[in-house]
Every structure is written in structure tokens, then in C-alpha cells.
């Protein structure tokens, strides 16, 4: 009985999520129409390409963050990990001259930070907040050491292709991110691992008693997040034709914002990747539109904060309403 309850999100919660998605779609539509009226350039293909490219990294990192938050955890190190894994990848690339070596090194570096997080959180049962706060500083420090605090120019076409190439107005990275989304959706909804992610977030102890090895699931979830950070690093390097020690700054906060907007519960066990995608899209549209409309930057932060607060409040009221 317990297995069935954990592995399939209950109907009541799914309805709550559907309401959240409806709200998000409504907000996306309203924001798009509003910004489109305020500035006709908003709907230009060039701007849509810019918008999607600018949130591609946030898409990847937020999808990883969704897995983490579904387990009831949090990963504050992803932004620093993007800088660190990018540094390792760029150094491997410039040392060997091989794009493949650069790709592999970046991905392995990202996964290594993920493994450290997962080991301390899953095996040693330490607080995810504290562990990833430590690796947040650790990875940034390593990035600064690797780079010597300076940027490294990259001119390898293969390494830059994913982040820097566009087919017309469509950045190559967009279909790539879509493929990653499909792959992660399969992993989350169609595999045993995906069910264990939900089980771990719903109740770690129950999952343990049922023999699901939630500690191992946690390690793999953080490794997956590290892998996505490595991918993000490759895209970022391609976008700016250089490795940058300060890249990814505050990325974790944007990702957490998008995941919460998307309806994933902070306590874990509830949420879907689709919500995260909608959350990232809403976030990206707001940022893009506020820049296009020349909104005072002070107000931009205010507006972002108000939207997040509004959605979270809405979520709280709808959940309370359904519980009574």
C-alpha cells in the first residue's frame, strides 16, 4: 500500500499542481501580452532567440534542482559548480587541445562536486543546506584557483558549438535543452530511480524501511545535478567564448526561485519537471520584458520578489483549501 502511495503522486496533489500550472500559463500569457504591447520588439524572432538562449542554462540547472528538491534537499553549490567544472573543462581543453577531453573533464568535475554533496547528505545524513553551502564556497574557490582569478579565452569551434551557434534565430542549445528535458522526464516518471526520488522526498525513513536505499538515491540525485552543472558550464563557455571564474554567480537562487514557482514542494515529494520549465519560462520572460521596457532596475527586483511571493501565497491557500 505504501509503495503505491509513494510512487504515484496522489490525485489531490496533482490537482493542486495542475492549478499551479494553469496559474503559471496565465501569468506567462499575461506577461507576454503586456510586454508585447509595451515593446513590439518583444515578439521579434531575434528577441525570442535571446530570451531562450539566456535561460537555457537556468533550464538545465533548474531541472537538476527539481530532482534535488523532490528529495527534500537543496543545492546551493550549482552556480559555483558551473564555474568550477567550466574551469576544469577549459584547462583540459587548452592543455590537450581536444574538445572531447574538455567535455569529459567538465562533466566529471561537475559530477565530482555532486558526489561530494551526495555523500555527505545521503550517507552521512548531514543537512543539505549546510553541505551545499560549504561546497558553494569550495567550488568557487577552486574555480578562482584554477583560473588564477582571470578568464581563459577559448577558440576551439567544437567546444564552443553548443553554446555559441544559432540556426537562424534559433540557438542550437534550445533543442538540446528540450532533449535533456525529455530524457530527464523519462528518468523521473518511467524508471525505478524516478520513483525512488519521490519516495525519498516523501519520507526518507519509510523509504529506508521499505528497502529502497534512499541514501544511494540521494547520492545519484546530486551527481545528476552536478552533471547538469557540467553541461551548463560547457554551454556558458560557448556563449562567451571564454572560461570565466565568476560565471554562475547567484544561479542557485534563480534556479530555486524557478523550481518553487513551478510548484515543487520545499519539503520534497511533490512537483514535476513541467512546472519547473514553466517557472523558468515565466522568470525569463519577466527579466527579458523588464529590460526591454526599460523598467528601473530597482523595481525589477521588487517585481520579481512580488511575483514569487504571490505564487507561493497562492500555493499555500490552495493547499489549505484542499486539505480542509
Amino acid at each position, binding site marked *: 500500500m505504501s509503495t503505491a502511495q509513494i510512487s504515484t503522486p496522489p490525485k489531490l496533489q496533482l490537482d493542486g499542481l495542475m492549478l499551479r500550472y494553469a496559474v503559471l500559463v496565465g501569468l506567462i500569457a499575461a506577461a507576454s501580452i503586456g510586454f508585447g504591447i509595451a515593446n513590439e520588439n518583444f515578439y521579434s524572432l531575434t528577441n525570442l532567440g535571446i530570451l531562450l538562449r539566456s535561460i537555457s542554462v537556468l533550464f538545465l540547472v533548474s531541472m537538476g534542482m527539481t530532482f534535488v528538491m523532490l528529495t527534500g534537499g537543496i543545492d546551493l553549490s550549482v552556480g559555483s559548480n558551473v564555474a568550477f567544472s567550466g574551469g576544469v573543462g577549459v584547462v583540459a581543453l587548452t592543455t590537450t587541445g581536444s574538445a572531447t577531453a574538455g567535455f569529459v573533464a567538465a562533466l566529471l568535475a561537475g559530477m565530482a562536486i555532486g558526489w561530494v554533496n551526495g555523500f555527505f547528505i545521503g550517507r552521512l545524513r548531514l543537512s543539505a543546506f549546510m553541505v551545499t553551502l560549504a561546497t558553494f564556497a569550495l567550488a568557487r574557490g577552486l574555480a578562482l584557483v584554477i583560473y588564477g582569478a582571470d*578568464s581563459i579565452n577559448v577558440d576551439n569551434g567544437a567546444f564552443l558549438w553548443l553554446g555559441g551557434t544559432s540556426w537562424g534565430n534559433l540557438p542550437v542549445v534550445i533543442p538540446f535543452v528540450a532533449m535533456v528535458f525529455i530524457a530527464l522526464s523519462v528518468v523521473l516518471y518511467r524508471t525505478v530511480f524516478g520513483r525512488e526520488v519521490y519516495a525519498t522526498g516523501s519520507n526518507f525513513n519509510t523509504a529506508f524501511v521499505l528497502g529502497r536505499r534512499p541514501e544511494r538515491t540521494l547520492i545519484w540525485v546530486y551527481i545528476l545535478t552536478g552533471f547538469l552543472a557540467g553541461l551548463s558550464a560547457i554551454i556558458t563557455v560557448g556563449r562567451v567564448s571564454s572560461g570565466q571564474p565568476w560565471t554562475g554567480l547567484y544561479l542557485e537562487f534563480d534556479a530555486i526561485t524557478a523550481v518553487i514557482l513551478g510548484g515543487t514542494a520545499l519539503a520534497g515529494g511533490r512537483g514535476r519537471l513541467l512546472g519547473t520549465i514553466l517557472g523558468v519560462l515565466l522568470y525569463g520572460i519577466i*527579466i527579458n520584458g523588464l529590460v526591454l521596457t526599460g523598467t528601473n532596475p530597482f523595481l525589477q527586483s521588487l517585481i520579481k520578489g512580488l511575483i514569487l511571493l504571490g505564487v507561493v501565497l497562492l500555493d499555500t491557500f490552495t493547499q489549505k483549501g484542499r486539505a480542509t
Partner: protein
Amino acid sequence: MNYLSKLSVGAIAAGALLGTTALADEGTLDIVFINDGHVAPYHVAWLSGFEDAIEAYDEAFSDLTVTGRWLSAEGSLEKMIQQAEVTINEKPDVMFVNAINVDAFEPLVAKAQAEGITWIAVHSPMESADYSFTLGDVVNGRNQGMAMCALSGGEPYKVGVMLGQAGNPSGEARREGILEGIATCDNIEVVAEQPADWDTVKAQSITENWLTQFPDLDAISGVTDGYMYPAIAVATNSGRDDLHFYGYDGDIPIIQQMEGGNVKADILLSGTREGWNFVQMAYRIHKGEELEKVYDFFTPLVLTEENHQTALANGFPEDVEVYYVDQALEVAEKGFLEFGPDSVM
């Protein structure tokens, strides 16, 4: 010069003017300033000067509509790149970009130029940019360091130097200059160097640590006046009324603490002046004026008259341009004096 020669010179001048401005809409000048952050009093003054100047130029020239806006990347490279991309798509006439790291913006400079936008790299020069608006950071830093030498009195003197964010070219250049200046005398010992990441809160912690670690510290030097506010407050609260401060930025509240205070020297950038200078520079480019590709912002050293005389007596170079406090405060408060519409009429 005969009539024919005058006519030829006039024709060449007119041709040059038409040639350089043919791409721009003669009746409008749209300026965008993308800054790396908005965290210090300097930034507030900077953007305020920029906004005031836009308004003043728009009012002063009836045949030209001057518009402008500023964006803050809040320290995030990704945000800044997105803002630059969106701005390029809007096709303003001139973009001032204070890049977090110039290498990351090379691809965007080419895009902007392809759209006919004039890209002006702010503080950290870029070879590919149309212009670089620089501060002469090494020279300024050296002047600060030499002032410290001249005012330290030849006795053993211990100083802590607060740096910018690691890898930031402007911060690195300032550090290089300060250390070069200090190296011109042999009585000053740099007991600590630490990055405070342009963050006033970090500057506060560093000051507290230094005062504990080096009870005989004589001075704190900073690459920005943003560090001086917490450093002065911490020193005052700790009863260290003898600690000297050497600033950089020309923030008005810091300059005001020079007469009879412990702020011994400052570098007069002044955010207000810089904001006004941006708009003046954009206007001159719009009018087809040929400017230096690397445009050096005029940034004199600020000393009290008394300290300047002391410094000169101690061998401080006479050719270093020095503003006294009153003069510095006047131009810092009124950016239009040097860079207003009157300066280009």
C-alpha cells in the same frame, strides 16, 4: 588662406561630418549604460549624474532628442550578457558597458557594431570596442601610494590594502599602481592585502580583523571609497582616531572628511562627474567628433592644501595634478560644470 582653400577645407570638414554621422538618426541620441552592479554610493552618484545629464542635454538641444536608461547586472555575468543582448536588439546609438569581464563580451561587441551601435567599454579597455572609457587606474593608484609616502613622515608606517574582486582588471590595475607608489619609499610596510570584492560588509570585517591582528597599523588604503565608510566607522568605534585612510573614487562624503580628518588622500573620479562625462562623450560622438579610442577620464588626486604642501616638501612630484578639497567637492557635486551642455556648445 584664399577663398578656394577655405572652400575646400569647409567641404572636407562637412564631408567628414556627414560621413561619420550618416548612419545615425540625426534627431535622436539613445544611450544605454549597463553597469556591473549597483551596490555602492559611487554607483548611486554615477547613475544620478547620468540621468541628470540625459535630461540636461535633451533640454539644451532643441534639434536633438536625447534618451537614456541604465541597467544593473547585480554582479552576475549571465545577467549582464542577457541585458547586453536584449539591448543590442533594441539598437540604441551608444552602449556604455562596464563589463564584469571584458573577454566574455567580445562576441557581443561584434554584434553591436554590426547593428551600427557604438560600443564603449567602461573602465576595462577593450581592443575591439569603438572606444574605451578608462580611468588611468595605475597612475591614480601610484599617486595614492606616493601621497602615502610623502605624508607618512619617513617613520616606519604599516598599511593594509583592501583590494577589489579577484581578477577584475580595474581593481588589479589600482592595486598595481598603489603598490608601485608605495615602493617609491622604504618606510612603508604593506602588512596585509585582501580582496573585499567591492563589498562594504566584507570591508567592515576585514577592518575589524586587521585592527585586531595589527594593533600598530597606521593606515588603510582602498581601491574604492566604498571600503572607507565601514573602515572609518570601525576605527572610530574602536577608538583608533590615529588611523589614516587613503581612498579612491572621490565620493563626496569621503572628501568631506579630509579637512581636519583622517582621510589623507583620495582620487577624484566622482560618480556624478563620470555620469555626466558619459553623456557628453556620447553627444560628441553623435556629432561626429573624433575622440581618442582610449578616452581617459580626468581624475586628479585630492589633498588638503596643507597636506599638499607637506607632501611637496617631502618630495612629492610637482607635476601630479592635485585638487584641493573645495574645488574637488564643487566639481564632484556639479558634474555639469565640466561636462554639461555648455561644454560642447
